[in-house]
């Protein structure tokens, strides 16, 4: 469409933001009324609640069983017993909730627009004073709200995990916010694709593939991409102290660097680490705060979430930050959380979902000039 109409829309929006937002609110109300009256949503929610509860209970049971076993055999207190089961339960439940939220969100969002098209109700909305953006945002917020209900249902278990492990409420807050954001990203992708694709089945499958791409595809492309980053790094020789204790230490790498700098082959993982950053698990894990390990006293075992975050940051740092004695410097074995990775990943995810939403918005403009093959507007 001409840029003139866009300008007009923009200026109309600027002149009166109230009607624009209230239009979105009315679409959300329409969508939610329909969703809240479908039995399927409640059934899914109930299954979800039961499943999350089961996972929480199983994690706790397996932890206490192994703990009892260790206590009986060794008579001492094991390492995990010091921190309690909390960190473990929290991490398992968080990973589970994220995984299933990523699986549920496409089902709730990816037929939002073309489902209406198939039912003949989309054109009813389009013929009113609603702008295409209002329809699209309304659909998105409704899908997001429906998906957030699943997160709300799993909150009790996250609280249990945090409470048992003596973690701070900040964990719950940050993790819930990040889960909500990730679910929102998937919903935006789903709504955008549903506006582009003709058939609901097709758009749902494509959205699942997009989610699979984010979760698995990023790992694969990072793995394969790393092979293309063969390069060199200047480094000299680490001299390990003979009496180095076996336990790893966050600050002291246990070696000194000596000798002339020589070229060593290394993988420049920092060039492809951005693919890893787009992984929803990496984004969530990296955003969750963990204790400052550079202070020696707090150092205990590293949890899975922290491990994911650290691994991703190692990849981002590249050989200059990870190869022993790169540029003649001693490398800390542990990277502080001063340069977070998640804003990059989240930014890339936002670009992707924003692009799809924009394409979806283009396809909702009326009077329509181009139609997707085989779609009828009414």
């Amino acid at each position, binding site marked *: 469409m001409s840029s003139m*109409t866009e300008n007009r829309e923009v200026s*109309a929006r600027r002149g009166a933001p109230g*009607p624009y937002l209230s*239009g979105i609110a*009315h679409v959300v*109300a*329409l969508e939610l*009324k*329909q969703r809240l*009256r*479908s039995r399927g949503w409640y059934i899914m929610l109930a299954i979800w609640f039961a499943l999350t509860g089961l996972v929480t209970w199983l994690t706790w049971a397996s932890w206490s069983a192994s703990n009892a076993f260790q206590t009986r055999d060794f008579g001492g207190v094991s390492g995990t017993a010091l921190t309690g089961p909390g960190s473990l339960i929290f991490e398992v439940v968080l990973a589970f909730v994220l995984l299933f939220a990523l699986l549920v969100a496409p089902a709730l969002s990816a037929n939002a627009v073309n489902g209406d098209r198939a*039912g*003949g*109700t989309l*054109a*009813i*909305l*389009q*013929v*009113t*004073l*609603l702008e295409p953006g209002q329809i699209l945002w309304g659909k998105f917020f409704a899908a997001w709200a429906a998906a957030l209900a699943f997160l709300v249902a799993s909150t009790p278990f996250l609280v249990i995990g945090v409470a048992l492990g003596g973690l701070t409420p900040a964990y719950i807050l940050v993790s819930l916010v990040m889960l909500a954001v990730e679910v929102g990203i998937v919903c935006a992708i789903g709504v955008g694709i549903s506006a582009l694709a003709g058939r609901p089945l097709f758009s749902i499958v494509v959205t699942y593939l997009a989610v699979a791409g984010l979760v698995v595809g990023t790992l694969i492309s990072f793995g394969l991409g790393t092979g293309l980053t063969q390069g060199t790094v200047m480094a000299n020789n680490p001299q390990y102290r003979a009496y180095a204790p076996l336990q790893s230490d966050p600050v002291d790498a246990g070696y000194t660097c000596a000798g002339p700098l020589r070229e060593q082959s290394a993988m420049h993982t920092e060039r492809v680490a951005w693919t890893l950053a787009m992984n929803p698990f990496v984004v969530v894990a990296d955003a969750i705060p963990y204790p400052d390990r550079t202070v020696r006293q707090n150092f205990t075992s590293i949890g899975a979430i922290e491990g994911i975050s650290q691994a991703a940051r190692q990849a981002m740092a590249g050989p200059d930050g990870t190869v022993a004695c790169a540029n003649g410097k001693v490398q800390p074995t542990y990277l502080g959380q001063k340069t977070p990775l998640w804003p990059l990943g989240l930014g890339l995810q936002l670009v992707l979902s924003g692009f799809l939403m924009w394409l979806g918005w283009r396809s909702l403009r*009326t*009077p*329509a*000039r181009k*139609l997707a*093959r085989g779609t009828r*507007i*009414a």
Partner: protein
Amino acid sequence: MAIISEQPGGQQVPDDGITAQGVSRSFGAVRAVDHMDFHAPAGRVTALIGPNGAGKTTLLLMLASLLAPDQGSITVGGLDPVRNRAEVRRRLGWMPDTLGVWESLTAREILTQMARFYRLPASGIAPRVTDMLEGVRLAALADQPARVLSRGQQQRLSLARALIHDPSVLLLDEPASGLDPGSRVELRTMLRQLAAEGKAVVVSSHVLSELDEIADGAVFVNNGRTVRQQTTEEAAAAGRRYAITAADTAALAAELARLGLEFRREEGRRPGVSLVLHNEVGAERLLRDLVLAGVGIRSFAPAAGALEETYMNLEGERR
């Protein structure tokens, strides 16, 4: 901002109804609409008539500002839908051929939502919705989910939905399909009333007999082209075929032959003759002549509606 003018009348429409000039629209290689002209004046019911696949729905979608024409222009009350989208949509009411109701919502909720989407003032919505529900006789079912409504009831709801913002141009795509005879009569009355209020009413259909009673004028389309525009009076003036049956068909035929009229024998369930008469005065005179000649006339009536006559003639020309 006054969106609805409650008083009926065509005063709010200085420029007349809805007009399409030379519009074309293709879907890929298929030319659905090809240089079609269309005009529906305010205060009248205009029928859009054509066989299936003639381009009626595509034209209506373009008139409803959902589809942009490849070529040509459309004006609604003198405004261009592309430039004055909001203004045009306030004036347009559209009832699609696919009903498209939100099945889990009640009739009242559907109309309320639509009123909000048209940005009607919040305080006026509830009474307006109640009025509309009574107008289409759905008040008793107002709080039932739309999925329990029958097809005819859903059709009436769809009509109320198209009228909720009191549009000055009403586009109805096959509004009578699936309606029982009683509901058709009701629809007819309602459309006449809306036209009397000064709205431009466009009805697409291929059920022609009832359009005679509703429509003031008709636009015939076929193969994506406007084939003919005429008013119902013009259609009637163009001559109609009358069917006559008599107690003694032979006597009737003899009398007609004596009068020098060209006729055709109809060998249907009730044997009789049919012939083309140019106007109603001629029909009146013929009937009197036949009765005075002592032929026992059993029935004497137009064989088909005036619009049907034109339609069938067009079909004939096409072959």
